């Protein structure tokens, strides 16, 4: 069955997925050292929504609970949800655009670039805060963007870039930067723990400020990418085919690369390297709904958000009071699930 026939069903399932996301967010906000009931959590969150909030009487809720949910847990949950959206959307975009199922958001070396930037900031002890963001975050962002620019220019032939060229350049530059990070760690042993913790990925530094910066980038970026869903479909068959179907392939590639890079750079610089989400979420979705990006992108976005919120909830609750880096959880729980999906699908084909 094609996309057109299933459009209506997809719409209902997408609404259902949003409801699940809202439910997961509420559950997550009740979990933690302070014991807050589901209803209270829900009331606190609704009270924060403009207009709707005035209808809720939040006087009866304990002030400390109100603070914990709305200023500690909620920004963290929303940040992980946004990162889940961003990484999944970009992963799906790259897999289609590069016609490579192995592609993930970091395939252009963005994660290594961000790590190198963050490492430099850590090693040189640049710990200040600029515009509400730590210098480490800013350096990570700059490192990520700079890396993409370098990779793009290595892969560029005239005004064209080939997918293979981009991937190879991304791997090469990424490996180079990774070894640079190792070298920096070797010469600055005192900072090793801090650097390793950064690269493992965590959203524990969440603030409303960070949510406010990440949200427009991820949401606007995702909307732009979704507007190109049909072009991505054609490009997943082949650049030449896409061109013969009237798509300005080189122009679309540039737009999507720019938007995707901005999304990933923003995500990775706020949270460190969170692996696997951008690889397995789009794949899992594709196993269920097929390859049409008009379905894959929105479902990946919501599922990515759900997945990240669940993983981060586990990260902060599994061994209290300490935290497991969320990047470890995503792989630890994501990999077996993905293997299960692959196995099940293999059986279906045979």
């Amino acid at each position, binding site marked *: 069955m*094609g996309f*057109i026939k299933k459009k209506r069903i997809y719409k209902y399932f997408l609404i259902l997925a949003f409801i699940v996301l809202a439910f997961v967010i509420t559950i997550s906000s009740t979990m933690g050292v302070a014991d807050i009931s589901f209803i209270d959590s829900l009331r606190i969150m609704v009270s924060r929504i403009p207009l709707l909030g005035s209808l809720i009487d939040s006087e009866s809720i304990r002030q400390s609970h109100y603070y914990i949910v709305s200023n500690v847990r909620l920004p963290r949950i929303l940040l992980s949800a946004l990162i889940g959206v961003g990484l999944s959307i970009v992963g799906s975009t790259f897999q289609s655009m590069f016609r490579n199922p192995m592609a993930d958001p970091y395939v252009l070396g963005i994660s290594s670039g961000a790590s190198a930037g963050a490492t430099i900031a850590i090693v040189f002890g640049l710990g200040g805060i600029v515009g509400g963001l730590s210098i480490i975050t800013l350096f990570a962002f700059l490192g990520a963007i700079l890396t993409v620019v370098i990779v793009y220019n290595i892969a560029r032939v005239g005004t064209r870039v080939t997918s293979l060229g981009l991937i190879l350049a991304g791997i090469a530059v990424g490996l180079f930067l990774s070894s640079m990070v190792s070298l920096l760690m070797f010469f600055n042993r005192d900072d090793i723990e801090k650097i390793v913790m950064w690269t493992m990925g965590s959203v524990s530094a969440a603030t409303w400020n960070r949510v406010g910066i990440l949200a427009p980038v991820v949401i606007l970026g995702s909307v732009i990418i979704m*507007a*190109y869903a*049909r072009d991505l479909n054609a490009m997943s068959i082949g650049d030449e085919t896409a061109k013969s179907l009237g*798509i*300005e392939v080189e122009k679309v590639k540039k737009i999507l690369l720019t938007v995707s890079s901005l999304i990933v750079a923003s995500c990775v610089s706020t949270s460190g390297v969170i692996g696997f989400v951008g690889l397995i979420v789009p794949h899992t979705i594709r196993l269920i709904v*097929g390859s049409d990006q008009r379905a894959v992108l929105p479902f990946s976005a919501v599922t990515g958000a759900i997945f990240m919120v669940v993983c981060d909830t586990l990260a902060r609750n599994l061994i209290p009071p300490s935290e497991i880096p969320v990047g470890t959880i995503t792989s630890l729980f994501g990999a077996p699930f993905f293997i299960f999906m692959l196995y099940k699908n293999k059986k279906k084909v045979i």
Partner: protein
Amino acid sequence: MESRVNYPIKIQNLGWKYGDRQILTNISLAIEKGYFYSIIGPNGSGKTTLLRNIAKSLVPKPQSVFVEDIDVTKLNSKNMAKRLSVVPQNTNIEFEFTVTDIVLMGRSPYIGRFQAETSSDLEIAQRAMRATNTWHLRDKRITEISGGERQRVIVARALAQDTGIMLLDEPVSQLDINHQIELMETIQRLTKTKEITAVSVMHDLNLAAQYSDYIILMNEGKVVCQGTPHEVITEENIKRVYKLDSYIMDNPVTGKPYIMHVSKDDRLAKHSVPILI
């Protein structure tokens, strides 16, 4: 107005270089509307480069390739895609689209970024699938059908593009003989019934001779000769271009030329050939 365009593709003094290598030299052609043209020639003779110049996937020099009397360098991708469709050589698709989805992609040049396919797009796709005998595959995934079926689906997509011109790059070279014939017959039928102008790069000389109205023979980047299969497929031309000795007879059923390759040893015993006739 459309009916006055009798030569939807015109080529004037087209040349093409890959770096320092001259691939095409001074090619001039006029392709007549509603006919099936085959481009033949040995490997490296420039067939595919010529096709890609017409399709603008290699951008030719201005004033050298005209599609429906418009210089292709002046046409943007969308307007090009409304005039000319392409069936590429390699149609391996790894992503799991249904056949209907693939055929509907042919409607892309007519659909705006924020629009969805209309029922008329679906109707056009359906007609294209029926014309290529792929309608029964409509709900199948493109990854689970055979090579021959997939190639017909790609032709259906090109058909859904609703263009006057269809370019094909060795569309049958990877298919079994029965699928080759099925596809060639489909293309032949489309040129006859829908007045589509088809230009196809072909490897198999006998298939080209059998199904096309006109043949363009290329060698070393130049057009050696062009004309009906009888005019082009001659022992002299085959000898000149392919350096092969051959014996050509008319297919007793269709009357089209049919090449039999003769090795040097056979030629010594040429007396045996007349007995065959």
